[in-house]
Structure formats: structure tokens, C-alpha cells
């Protein structure tokens, strides 16, 4: 199939009416376009705009991993911002890949990354722009096979009718094998291919439903991590080199889905990380390396790793950053070490306002630890802190919400004592969402009206603290839809389609989200939020995601839920020490 003729758009002054047109150009340093024989093509699609998709580490890994396979060419695809989408439709330009500007419909395999539930309608936006029928059963042999993966694939049901198959788990383990199989059977009838795929471990084919166990990498050093990366010209959300230093987290926060589905915790060796950092800085020229993981200060040799990286990159003015700091004195020490090149803000996540509720969520931080950590931060020179809190947590009372303001007042008092009036505290408050595969999967989400009441209470308390405390909170209507899609079953596919048909795309962007579309679509399908979101579950009641095995036993999750209700602590396990018998390592 010929390349998409972008001349009509790129050369035309109409493109100037589009926001950030640079994101549609491609041609960035380090893209891969193979010269030799290519007989299997993969479009790696991210159902959000360029700057979000390009920030995603998983996409970078997949891009390089699949392009190492002989005969295989993987190319990137992002959905356009609505203004460009409209222009493409007007000019008859189909969705295209950035590397060779090929129409998405011409690829052999279309892989869609499922990172966030509110992007589900963007999957249809993507297919629509590509000219691909939405439902798997409507697509014959002449369309690309469509695979979904990522954390949302751990409950694939709401999207199941749209996809041909899902891959559950970590791509490095198993996905290249799937591509090799697909390359071999290319040209066979789709049904035969899907039947064959359904026998592979980690693959879920909705047409042949059977229990699936996630694939995971035993040794991070043994699998590919890209030693070069595409360098965008336009600014993206996380505009830096991400190096994944560890995968998984065993802190066991009971609301956290990533903490469960990415178990067990594994580390990349410091030698490998330094080697990667060197190669990545040399080949990308980036000014910052971010050491990515779910809890970076848990990395066993974080201290010596940071020293080695600072020595190497300090003279080249390359900044090192850690995105996820625990709230302890050690983390502040580490952050101080990181400030040598450039100074940036400091972010912590106490999540709840008092020790009782933090015990419920298994985040055992005492108020005095929090205060001594912030004191250390303020005396070390920081003047602004960002803090994350959640409301609507299980077992939460109004007094707990008030305690967020009490704790912030204490932090402010400490800050003012150390830094005077310059202190600036920024709170980000989100609604708790009961995600699948977590100990809180049995919990009902708090209704929007209750969350609004709690937020009203919290707002009135926080306002008394003056201008030094700024705060914003998430849209609770969006949180309810996120919970709906996270917990949904296959009946929601029709709801997703109805919302899309009402121009409901880019729903993850508050300026485009409209809750009424969801309410109407649910009603038309005879469904309601009550059934999916506001109803607590019992252990016996099956979930739509029950037959996706994330490695952690359901019994363990239930035990953790019971411990949460009693406010009991479960220690972090690492290397078998204080093992909670979650089942993943076995």
C-alpha cells in the first residue's frame, strides 16, 4: 500500500490552524526504518496524543524489542488532537504511522497500549480514523490483527469485542515469540491464527475464552532495554531518558493495582543501568535521566548508583531524577544528592490524613515521620512541596478527611519555622478507585455526591491555611467512569461505542469529558453505575477479571482486605524476607 500523502496537509496553511503541528511530522532522531527485507509490519499504537504516548516507557521498550526481530518493522502511531483529526477527515487522510507514513490499515499487526481506562473510547477513535471496523467479528483476513496489552488488559472484558487478542503481562517475555508465530502463519485464515494464538501462554483470545496466566520476566538484565531512544522535537510530558531500575513493588499499598500486577519485585543491576545511561545520553543528547520504578528509593544500591551516575554526568550537565520518593529522611538525602545539577520540586504521597487510615491502606507512616521528613526537606533548602492525597478511601470517616487539613497545617507550621513566609505547599487530591486485582477490589466506590461533600469540607478547612497552600482535586465524575471501565464486563463494549458515537473521545482530558454521554449510554444499554461501581462485593461473587491470573492469589487479596478493615499492617517483602505467600514467586 502506498504511503499516506501528507503533502496535502503538511504543505497547506490549514496545518497552521492545528495546535502543535510538530507532533504529526515524525522524522525524529533514532527512529528505525529498516533497509532490508521486511515481511511483517507492526503498528504500535498509543490511544492518546503524541506527547503522552511518547512519554510511555513501555512503548519505547516494545519499539526497540520488536524492531530487533529479523524481517519485522514496528512503527509508532498516536491519535491526533481533535483539531487534526477533523482536518484529516476533511482531507480524506487515514491514520498513519510516523516512521514511513503508512496507513494503519496496511499493517499486519496493530498493537494498542491500554494504560488508562478513560482512553477506551480513543481505541475506537483510532480505529475509526484508520478506517478499521470496530468489532473483531466484522474484520476479515484483510485487516490487521489487533492486540491489546498493558495494565488495563488485566481486565480486558469491556474492550474484548473490539480486539482479536490480548497479551497479559510483560512484553519482553513472550511477545517476540508471538510475533514470530504470526510472521510464520501470515496469510492463513484469521480464525486459524487466533486458534493457534489461544494456545500460547499469556494470550487471551476473546473468541476462545480460557483462563490466562500473565507472563513475566525473571531477570531484567537478561532482557532488552533500549540503549537508544527516539528523541522528540516537540516537548512531551516526560521529556527525559527513563531507565527502569526495578519492576514491581512489594510495599503492598492496598489501593495500588501496579503494586500487585507487576509483582514480583525485580532489579536491574547497577552495572547495566550505568551502561544504559551512558549509551542513552550519548545517543539521545537528553539533559536528564530519570530512574524509573514504582518505589525508586527501595532500590538496593540506590546510593552508590546515584554517586556513580552523578560522577559520570555531572560534568556533562545531565540531571538525574527519581520520580517516586518515599516519605523518609533517606529520600530527602537522596533528593539533595540529585539537586547538584539542577534544582527541582519535591513530591511526596502521604495519601491519607492520619495514621489510622494509612494503616487501612497499608501505608505505615507516622505523622511524626512525615513531619521530620518535611522538616529535613525545608532545612535542606526546598520551599515548595507537592503532596498527594486520596479521599473516599475504604473505612474513611469525615474526621479522616479533616485530618488531611490538620496534617497540612502541621507541615505548613514546620515549613514556616524553617523557611519563613516563602513556603508553598501544593496538594493534589484524587478520589479512590477500586481497581481489579487489588485487596480493595471488593470495595464500592464512594458516590460522587459524598465525595463532593467531603471535598467541600476539606476545601473549607484548607482555605483557612492561607495562600501558602494551593490545592486541586480530580473530577469525581471522571473517577466514577474510570472505576466503571476498570471493573466492567463485556456488556460495556456497547456503552463505549455509544459514547464514541456521541463524539466521546479524548475522555481522559477534562476539557473533552462529558459525564452525560456515559449516563445516557448506560441507560440505553439497561446498565448503571450502581451495578459496577457502587456495590460492594463478596468473596464468593465472581469478578469479570477472575480468570486473568496476575500471579497473586485471590485469597491473599481477600486476606489483605480483611486486614485493612482491622487496620493491620503487612510488611514489605523482598527476597523472600517476610514473605506474605502472595503466590507470584511460586
Amino acid at each position, binding site marked *: 500500500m502506498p504511503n499516506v500523502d*501528507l503533502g496535502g496537509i*503538511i*504543505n*497547506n*496553511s490549514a*496545518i*497552521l490552524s492545528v495546535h502543535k*503541528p*510538530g507532533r*504529526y*511530522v515524525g*522524522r525524529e*532522531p533514532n527512529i528505525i526504518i529498516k533497509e532490508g527485507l521486511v515481511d511483517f509490519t507492526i503498528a504500535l499504537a498509543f490511544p492518546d496524543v503524541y506527547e503522552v504516548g511518547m512519554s510511555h516507557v513501555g512503548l519505547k521498550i516494545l519499539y526497540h524489542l520488536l524492531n530487533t526481530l529479523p524481517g519485522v518493522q514496528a512503527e509508532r502511531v498516536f491519535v491526533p488532537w481533535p483539531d487534526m483529526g477533523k482536518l484529516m477527515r476533511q482531507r480524506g487522510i487515514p491514520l498513519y504511522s510516523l516512521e514511513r507514513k503508512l496507513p494503519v490499515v496496511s499493517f499486519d499487526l496493530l498493537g494498542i497500549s491500554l494504560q488508562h481506562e478513560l482512553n477506551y473510547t480513543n481505541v475506537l477513535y483510532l480505529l475509526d480514523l484508520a478506517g478499521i471496523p470496530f468489532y473483531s467479528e466484522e474484520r476479515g483476513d484483510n485487516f490487521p490483527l489487533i492486540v491489546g496489552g498493558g495494565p488495563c488488559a488485566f481486565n480486558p472484558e469491556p474492550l474484548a469485542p473490539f480486539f482479536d487478542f490480548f497479551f497479559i503481562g510483560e512484553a519482553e517475555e513472550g511477545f517476540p515469540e508471538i510475533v514470530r508465530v504470526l510472521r510464520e502463519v501470515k496469510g492463513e485464515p484469521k480464525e486459524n491464527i487466533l486458534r493457534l494464538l489461544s494456545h500460547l501462554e499469556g494470550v487471551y483470545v476473546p473468541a476462545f475464552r480460557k483462563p490466562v496466566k500473565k507472563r513475566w520476566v525473571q531477570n531484567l538484565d537478561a532482557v532488552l532495554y533500549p540503549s537508544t531512544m527516539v*528523541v522528540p*522535537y*516537540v*516537548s512531551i510530558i516526560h*521529556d527525559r531518558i527513563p531507565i527502569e531500575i526495578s519492576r514491581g513493588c512489594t510495599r503492598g499499598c492496598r489501593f495500588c493495582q501496579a503494586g500487585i500486577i507487576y509483582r514480583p519485585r525485580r532489579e536491574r543491576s547497577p552495572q547495566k543501568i550505568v551502561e544504559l545511561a551512558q549509551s542513552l*545520553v*550519548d*545517543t*539521545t*543528547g*537528553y*539533559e536528564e535521566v530519570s530512574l524509573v520504578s514504582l518505589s525508586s528509593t527501595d532500590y538496593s544500591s540506590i546510593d552508590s548508583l546515584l554517586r556513580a551516575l552523578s560522577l559520570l554526568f555531572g560534568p*556533562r*550537565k*545531565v540531571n538525574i531524577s527519581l520520580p517516586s520518593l518515599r516519605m523518609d529522611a533517606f529520600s530527602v538525602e537522596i533528593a539533595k544528592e540529585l539537586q547538584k*545539577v*539542577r*534544582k527541582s520540586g519535591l513530591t511526596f504521597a502521604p495519601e491519607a490524613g492520619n495514621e489510622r487510615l494509612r494503616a487501612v491502606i497499608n501505608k505505615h507512616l507516622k505523622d511524626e515521620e512525615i513531619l521530620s521528613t518535611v522538616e529535613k526537606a525545608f532545612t535542606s533548602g526546598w520551599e515548595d512541596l507537592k503532596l498527594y492525597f486520596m479521599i473516599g478511601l475504604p473505612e474513611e470517616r469525615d474526621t479522616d478527611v479533616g485530618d488531611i487539613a490538620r496534617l497540612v497545617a502541621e507541615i505548613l507550621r514546620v515549613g514556616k519555622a524553617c523557611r519563613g513566609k516563602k513556603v508553598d505547599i501544593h496538594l493534589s487530591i484524587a478520589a479512590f478507585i477500586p481497581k481489579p486485582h487489588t485487596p480493595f477490589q471488593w470495595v464500592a466506590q464512594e458516590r460522587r455526591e459524598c465525595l463532593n461533600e467531603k471535598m467541600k469540607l476539606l476545601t473549607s478547612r484548607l482555605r483557612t491555611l492561607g495562600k501558602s497552600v494551593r490545592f486541586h482535586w480530580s473530577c469525581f465524575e471522571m473517577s466514577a467512569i474510570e472505576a466503571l471501565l476498570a471493573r466492567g464486563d463485556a456488556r460495556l463494549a456497547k456503552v463505549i461505542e455509544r459514547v464514541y458515537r456521541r463524539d466521546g473521545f479524548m475522555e481522559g482530558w477534562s476539557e473533552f469529558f462529558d459525564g452525560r454521554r456515559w449516563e445516557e449510554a448506560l441507560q440505553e444499554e439497561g446498565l448503571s453505575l450502581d451495578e459496577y461501581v457502587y456495590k460492594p462485593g463478596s468473596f464468593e461473587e465472581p469478578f469479570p477479571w477472575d480468570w486473568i491470573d496476575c500471579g497473586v492469589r485471590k485469597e491473599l487479596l481477600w486476606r489483605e482486605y480483611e486486614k485493612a478493615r482491622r487496620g493491620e499492617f503487612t510488611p514489605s517483602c523482598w527476597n523472600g524476607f517476610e514473605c506474605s505467600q502472595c503466590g507470584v514467586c511460586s
Partner: protein
Amino acid sequence: MGRFRYRLKHWKMNPFHLLSQLDLTRMWDRIVRRARLPVAYSQGFNPRPLFSFAPATPLGVESRAEYVDVIFQEEFSPDTLSQMLRPCLPSELRLEEVVPIPLQAPSLAQSVVGVLYSFSFFYPPWEKEDPPFPEGVAVEYIKEEGDILCVCFRFTGKEVLLNPLKFASFLHETHGCCVPFRIVKEEVILNLGG
């Protein structure tokens, strides 16, 4: 540690005319790091590489005359710098020239005294006589290439920074001229005497 200033001239042709000035700033920072060139940095909490740019070309306008001054900690011959930087740039952004200049020479922003922009039209934009243009804008030359008419304007004086896109809409709105389908910054006239 020494300081050596060089003036680089490069293109920004289609499709890179869709990059903003901020995109180019980031691009240069990364290019010199990829080329392992020892660029000098500003002091302070947030050290920045010492680049300074000529007034920005508006997004959507192509250019054969993008200028950037960069200060390195070491002295290089212009040829060596060209050889190190050229492979880092695609052909549409190609490096045209590297010239060493005195550290104390006036900045690019101070040195610009004129800009030549060529406007490409499918139809003659006006009949017979030139319409009255704003002060500081004059026709430099007109070229016919098949069906396409290319008018090159010289922007000078106070209007030197006049946005060519705004000028195109001025022509359209005030004189009913057709809208150019392509605008290229052909050259920047620098007063090297300061």
C-alpha cells in the same frame, strides 16, 4: 576554561517548519550533547547551555537562514565543528555555515537589520503596480517558476521583525491579494559592525 563563540547558520525547511523556536532550542541542546561538544553553561541553580538565537521564524514559515550563536569551552576549527554537527541534522535542517565570532560581538538579536522572505503564489497577487506596503517592506525581486510566482520581500528598519504571516494576511485583507502557499525566510541581513 576558555570561551569560544561560533555562529551557526542552518535550514528549517518542510516539514520542520512546523517546529517552534522552543523546539529548536531543545534540539540544539541535545545535538551538541550527542556530538559531545563542550558547550559552556550559565551559572546558578538552573544552568543553561549558552545558546542565543536570532529572532524566531514563525511556525509554518520555512527558512534557509536560521542563526544560532553558541559558546564552547574549547576552540575548534569551523570545519571540525561542521563535521561533528552535520551528521546530527536531517537534510531539511542542514548546517550551512559555521563562523567563529568575537565573544563580545553584538548578539544576533541586536545585529539583525533586515530579513528577506519569499512568498510563493499560484496566481499573481496583484496586477501591474505594487500596492502600497507598510513602512520597511519592499519587493526585492520577483521570479516566475512555471505557474508559480515567487515574490521576495525585504523587511527592514523598525518593521524588521514584522511577522510574514501577518504581512500575508495584510496583503489579503487590504489589497485582496491571494494567500501565498509557501513562505521562506531566504536570508537574514546582519550588521556585523554592531
